[in-house]
């Protein structure tokens, strides 16, 4: 099938692109045909509560009233809090324990508000959003223009490449021989950090000098209906550090209607080989500071997503003959300010403006023309300027939590001129063995016995390890605290649409049998990858996969292809 422009992935970046071109297409006598394919089974897919300065978004909607967007609020009170560990179960260095001792003097509910918050962390004038609701709101407006078509439930398998040019995409196979080929003069790629089209482009065309994507994080969040008597106002923003582990950052954003997004980021430099985001998230929400607001609340939905956190260092070739890349997969996330949605949106707008320019001039979408029309805009913008400041801001976390915080502060306060120098390593290269990580706190023989039992039972290690380390059992209440599998069924759906094949597979199954860490099982956000009881490679159940991509980040022996489905909660 032939179209003029084919777009891959519908998120904030694609929203920015399509919103920029759609009104202009409506003015054309014979507008080009623009089609966008999104893997998820709804256009309200998104896995993030967001606080954003919204500079680019407000630029696209100059008279934006947050009330127009469900679950959106203007940013109000902002706090950065240091949380100490009420259980004594987390792994804290001597320096962090010393910090804890000082913090306790001024703490209430095991939390201290930082007396000074550097300006680069503030989001004054910005918005608290549900990215799912924002995407849905944008898609409604786009569709009513009648000039672009956005199709959910249609994963794109790979780009079509002929004579070093991208000439369209191939859709994922739905049970036939091959997916349909969609040929187009321009392919806009916004399929995120683990998207198959973006990865295939990197394989085929290579990456720029200095490119690396070792830093990433797994974001895991809940949408919670707050208790009726909760005093938190819409727009309230809490950023936290220090708990459930020093390396894990957290957040709580309050939406209108007494709803909050609360979540954590488990970073790639957290070396625990039995790490889990869901269990840590449960402990996070039960921290006494947060629990004073959340106790009595109800879980409305849950989700997880991996984030590319190498920022500008993870920027691929942004344009080539017949294609352009925007959004998170193009390296837009600002790791210093902790923001990405507005940056992604803005790169979409920049490409949209560039494409309109090329349409007016009637010139083809060659690398040179796209460089001139899109790349120059991006390089001259605040997105580029701020990403350079942030480029090395998180290096210090390779050496530890406190060094990382100092490095961020230095980079932020000096405009990126001063930073901590540290070599970034991929998580599979730096992750510690069970013996090393737990050895100082649990007798080695006991670690081995717990591992043996878990393998025999076909369950992940993390629950038993955490409880052995002193983390309390989760008191399930069926409302806010529930099993991982229950959370998957609240507020959304995990679907593995008929016809598609498994999108996660294990390249060398013998290697899996020999693997001691099984991080793919431990960190799987949907418990879709489970240990085999038969001493075989893990088993994958695509009906549970939320497409977070953590398995791909964690292990080179995983193939993560295009697939339909994933958790769909329009409130995430």
């Amino acid at each position: 099938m032939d179209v003029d422009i084919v777009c891959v992935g519908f998120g904030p970046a694609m929203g920015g692109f399509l919103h920029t071109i759609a009104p202009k297409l409506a003015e054309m006598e014979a507008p080009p045909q623009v089609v966008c394919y999104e893997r998820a089974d709804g256009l309200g897919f998104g896995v993030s509560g967001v606080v954003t300065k919204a500079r680019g978004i407000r630029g696209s909607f100059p008279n934006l009233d947050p009330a127009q967007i469900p679950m959106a609020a203007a940013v109000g009170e902002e706090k950065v809090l240091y949380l100490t560990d009420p259980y004594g179960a987390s792994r804290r260095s001597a320096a962090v324990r010393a910090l804890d001792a000082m913090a306790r003097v001024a703490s209430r509910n095991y939390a201290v508000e930082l007396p000074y918050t550097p300006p680069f962390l503030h989001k004054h004038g910005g918005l608290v959003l549900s990215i799912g609701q924002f995407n849905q709101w944008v898609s409604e407006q786009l569709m009513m223009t009648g000039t672009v078509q956005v199709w959910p439930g249609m994963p794109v398998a790979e780009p079509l490449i002929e004579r070093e040019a991208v000439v369209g995409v191939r859709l994922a196979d739905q049970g036939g021989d091959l997916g349909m080929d969609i040929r187009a003069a321009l392919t806009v790629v916004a399929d995120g950090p683990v998207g198959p089209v973006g990865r295939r482009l990197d394989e085929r065309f290579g990456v720029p000098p200095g490119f690396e994507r070792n830093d990433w994080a797994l974001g895991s969040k809940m949408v919670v209906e707050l208790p009726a008597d909760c005093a938190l106002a819409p727009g309230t923003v809490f950023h936290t550090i220090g708990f459930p582990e020093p390396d894990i950052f957290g957040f709580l954003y309050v939406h209108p209607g007494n709803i909050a997004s609360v979540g954590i980021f488990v970073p790639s430099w957290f070396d625990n080989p039995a790490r889990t985001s869901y269990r840590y998230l449960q402990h996070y929400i039960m921290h006494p500071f947060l629990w004073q607001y959340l106790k009595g609340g109800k879980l409305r939905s849950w989700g997880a997503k991996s984030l590319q956190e190498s920022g500008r260092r993870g920027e691929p070739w942004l344009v080539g003959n017949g294609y352009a890349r925007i959004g998170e997969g193009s390296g837009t996330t600002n790791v210093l300010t902790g923001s990405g949605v507005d940056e992604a949106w803005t790169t979409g707008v920049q490409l949209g403006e560039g494409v309109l320019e090329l349409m007016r001039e009637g010139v083809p979408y060659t690398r040179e023309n796209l460089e001139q029309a899109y790349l120059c805009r991006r390089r001259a913008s605040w997105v580029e300027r701020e990403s350079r400041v942030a480029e090395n801001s998180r290096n210090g976390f390779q050496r530890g939590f406190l060094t990382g915080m100092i490095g961020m502060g230095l980079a932020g306060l000096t405009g990126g001129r001063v930073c901590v120098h540290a070599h970034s390593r991929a998580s599979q290269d730096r992750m510690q063995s069970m013996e090393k990580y737990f050895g100082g706190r649990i007798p080695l023989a006991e670690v081995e016995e717990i591992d043996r039992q878990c393998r025999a039972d076909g369950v992940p290690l993390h629950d038993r390890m955490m409880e052995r380390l002193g983390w309390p059992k989760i008191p399930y209440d069926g409302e806010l605290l529930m099993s991982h599998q229950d959370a998957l069924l609240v507020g959304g759906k995990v679907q593995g649409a008929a016809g598609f094949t498994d999108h996660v597979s294990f390249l060398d199954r013998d290697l899996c049998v020999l693997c001691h860490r099984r991080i793919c099982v431990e960190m799987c956000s949907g418990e879709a990858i489970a240990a085999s009881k038969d001493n075989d490679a893990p088993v994958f159940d695509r009906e549970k996969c939320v497409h977070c991509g953590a398995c791909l980040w964690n292990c080179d022996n995983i193939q993560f292809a295009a697939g339909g489905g994933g958790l769909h909660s329009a409130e995430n």
Partner: protein
Amino acid sequence: MSDTFHIVVCGGIVPDPLQTLEPVGGPNGPALKNEMLLPHVLDPWAGHALWEAANLAKKTPGSKVWLVSLAPKAKLQQVMMTVAQRVPLELVAVDGPSGGFTDSAEVAAALAGAIEAIPGLDRARLLLFGGWESASRAAGATLQMVGERLGITEQFQGVDELTVGDDGSLRILERVEGGQHQVSKCAGAPAVLGWATGNLPEPANSPQVGMQNMRLILPALQKAKPAQVSTGCTYASVALPKQMRETRVVKDTPVEDIAREIVEWITAG
């Protein structure tokens, strides 16, 4: 007798059945809490009817499928982005509430009016499809009333299979108690068929079908007329059942084991 059909499928949209749906009192009567935030799907019963309609139309060239839906326009548009990729159809949209609290007779009147206004619809060849139940109301009354308003006397409910004879006659399997089917025959269209589950899986997405449908879906949404439907009754109070979730997702478990576990759970309580 014609061997082609004009198949009209009545299908509403409902919040995804996996949601916890909490009825609340709203300014216009009962509603679901945060209804506009919830992801919606085509009513599963109507979905079965639509797949069967498309299959019948494919087998009888010259036939045509309309989907008539009463729902909030914005939500209907979202659902159509998925449904429109599945089967060729022409949408007739009626803008109105879809929460299941509306009066069935008024909904039926609005749907019947929309069907009567379809240009070129041949009532002699009309097969009126829909779900015999609905995920939002489960009463199974609406489709029957639509049929009555259209003057169709041949009505079948709980349909699992429709076979069209060479002479255009219809052989229909309707569900009856005890897992049995009642076999009925009628001379042909017009007829009302309220589908149970049918026998067809959800069709795969087709980009071409989607693009073909979309040419007519957006104009249909833009000209959707508002429906005058009321709740028809008042609800004194509504309470959600208390729940304790303890889900395990398992596969290939024998029915006997599932039954035994449920009995153990009930008796333990």
